[in-house]
């Protein structure tokens, strides 16, 4: 997956005549690659634009600007017919297992719907495929005539996963797939996603605000704030040594399940609230809350730059560090599957 300068802006309409009075810059120039078989974690807090990125990649939104490619195929500029042919390749798993399943359809119908939509095979072929999918996600075949309300959150999420796998996609956007689940069930679903990735060679964009789960499943991680990526790095270096002040604050804010560590040092508590994405601050959009803000931050927008191999940051603190100006990729070419993820 290759994404270049993705933008999605929503108009703010106001007044009696509903004229455009402003713009919500939900996604404001986002670029990254995801290599085949890799999991890119996309983290950030509410309103940062991460879910909008996920939906834009699948063209569930029309894009304001930017380019999206899957393999050699152009997604962003595809005609409706071409897009329809691309859809089986890229699927989504949604956050709310209750809202994303039609309550009036049985499991079998839900999982089989993509197959019917894309006319894949005969009725009995489809039934066999649905059963095979249910096996893969750990749902008993006898459940296929039941309705979503008869299942728990974790099981409903499995239904959603089975449905996403129906057309044998290569790429899946997982949009907060475990947020609505109990802690003891989250691990079950994450393990399933990992197992499926290994078995089927899937590529994931894993969107989440849960930094500890992302640490577990992702190969590389991108951190978003107010519509932009502020840092992108391989997982271990990011968690061990976050470079962007927002990443540092985010990691430091995650409560540590160890009472002995609770009053020790390094807790960075950000002041204030996130600015509105309709009125982002001029210059660096994090400057209003940044503990390390400088004069230049108000004048100039920091660019996402590769300051060390594989480590990208958008921050003036690293203005002197840059080694590779303008580069967005972090060492792994998605079209040739070379090299390590980091």
């Amino acid at each position, binding site marked *: 997956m290759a994404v270049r300068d993705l933008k999605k802006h929503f108009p703010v309409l106001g007044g009696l005549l509903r004229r455009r009075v402003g713009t919500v810059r939900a996604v404001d120039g986002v670029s990254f690659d995801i290599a085949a078989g890799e999991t890119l974690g996309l983290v950030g807090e509410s309103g940062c634009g991460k879910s909008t990125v996920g939906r834009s990649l699948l063209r569930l939104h029309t894009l304001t600007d930017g380019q999206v490619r899957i393999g050699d195929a152009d997604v962003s500029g595809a005609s409706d017919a071409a897009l329809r042919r691309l859809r089986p390749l890229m699927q989504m798993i949604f956050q709310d297992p209750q809202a994303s399943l039609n309550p009036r359809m049985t499991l079998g119908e839900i999982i089989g719907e993509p197959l019917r939509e894309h006319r894949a095979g005969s009725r009995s072929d489809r039934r066999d495929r649905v059963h095979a999918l249910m096996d893969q996600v750990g749902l008993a075949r006898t459940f296929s005539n039941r309705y979503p309300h008869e299942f728990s959150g974790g099981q409903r999420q499995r239904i959603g996963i089975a449905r996403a796998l129906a057309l044998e996609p290569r790429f899946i956007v997982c949009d907060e797939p475990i947020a609505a689940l109990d802690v003891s069930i989250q691990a079950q679903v994450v393990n399933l996603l*990992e197992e499926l990735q290994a078995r089927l060679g899937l590529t994931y964009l894993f969107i989440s605000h849960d930094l500890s789960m992302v640490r577990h499943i992702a190969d590389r991680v991108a951190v978003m704030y107010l519509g932009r990526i502020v840092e992108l790095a391989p997982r271990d270096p990011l968690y061990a040594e976050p470079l962007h002040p927002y990443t540092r604050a985010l*990691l430091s804010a995650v409560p540590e399940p160890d009472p002995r560590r609770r009053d020790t040092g390094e807790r960075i508590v950000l002041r204030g609230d996130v600015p509105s994405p309709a009125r982002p601050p001029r210059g660096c959009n994090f400057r209003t809350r940044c503990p390390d803000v400088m004069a230049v931050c108000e004048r100039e927008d920091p660019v996402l730059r590769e300051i060390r191999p594989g480590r990208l940051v958008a921050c003036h603190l690293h203005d002197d560090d840059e080694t590779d100006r303008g580069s967005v990729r972090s060492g792994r070419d998605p079209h040739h599957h070379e090299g390590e993820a980091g």
Partner: protein
Amino acid sequence: MHDIQDGKAPALRVRNLETRFRTRAGHVHAVNSVSFDVARGELLGVVGESGSGKSVTMMSLVGLLPSPPAEIAAGEVLFDGQDLLQCEPRALRAVRGARIGFIFQDPMTSLNPVFDIGFQICEPLRRHMGLSKKAALVRAAELLDLVGIPDAKARLGQFPHEFSGGMRQRVMIAIALACDPDVLIADEPTTALDVTIQAQILELVKSLRETLGMAIVWITHDLGVIAGIADRVIVMYGGQIVEQAPVEALFASPRHPYTRALLRTMPSVRGPRSATLEVIAGQPPVLSDAPTACTFRARCAYRAERCDHENPRRREVGPGHDAACFHEFDEEAAVRG
């Protein structure tokens, strides 16, 4: 009601609480024989997932459950010399909001969208403490200040939708603290908030605790939050308390299989990274019968014959530490390798 426990008199004492819901399909035994104390100045953490009974327990204490379908089948809730479960609704209303404050998870549904913040904070002040409108507004501004909302006087005239999620939760805290309650009960107050905002709220609560000295009950499923603010912890599962311990002891040597499993399934942000996540197989139980066996047995790694026939009672396993399990864990049972 002057029993001493660990040197502090309990502000709230719950004994053998049982709450059931009558449904068309029969009874749901949501809370089974729950007992705990909270002392002044202490923060009791309550850990549990959905269906554990944690929220129903707290709402039972002050009559917040609609009845029917809820029935409080047994128990005592001792507060300031009286049993709240025996109180008349009128007397309970005087306690609720004034002496026992509540904070709920979603501040948008707990705040009335059509009244301004000033009005909502003043409401308990005028009703329970009889303050005049003017005096109440002064106190309301003080409270907003206390919870860290800048420009307090101006914001009193604003409506809930004009505040962010974190700010609204601060307003909820202000309302809950308005009448200087003896006990504050917070049900998942930061679960719906971003992690950086949660950190702010937790810092606020810690500092308020220093200055105000009330008893706090903090319900959450997040063990990280518990580690950060709790003095003691109770772990709930299947409508019962399965473990109770001082916070360090709970993390250092958990004695109930559910607690141990929960601690193991949590990936961490700072510590060593595990290659595969441990899971707790299975689902939480459906509580359609009063338990005659251990509610955790279907998911328990230490299940034995006895567990299928008897519901284990809480027994002491260390100083101030009890667990409802037949299994004997080693003295210094460590969870993480």
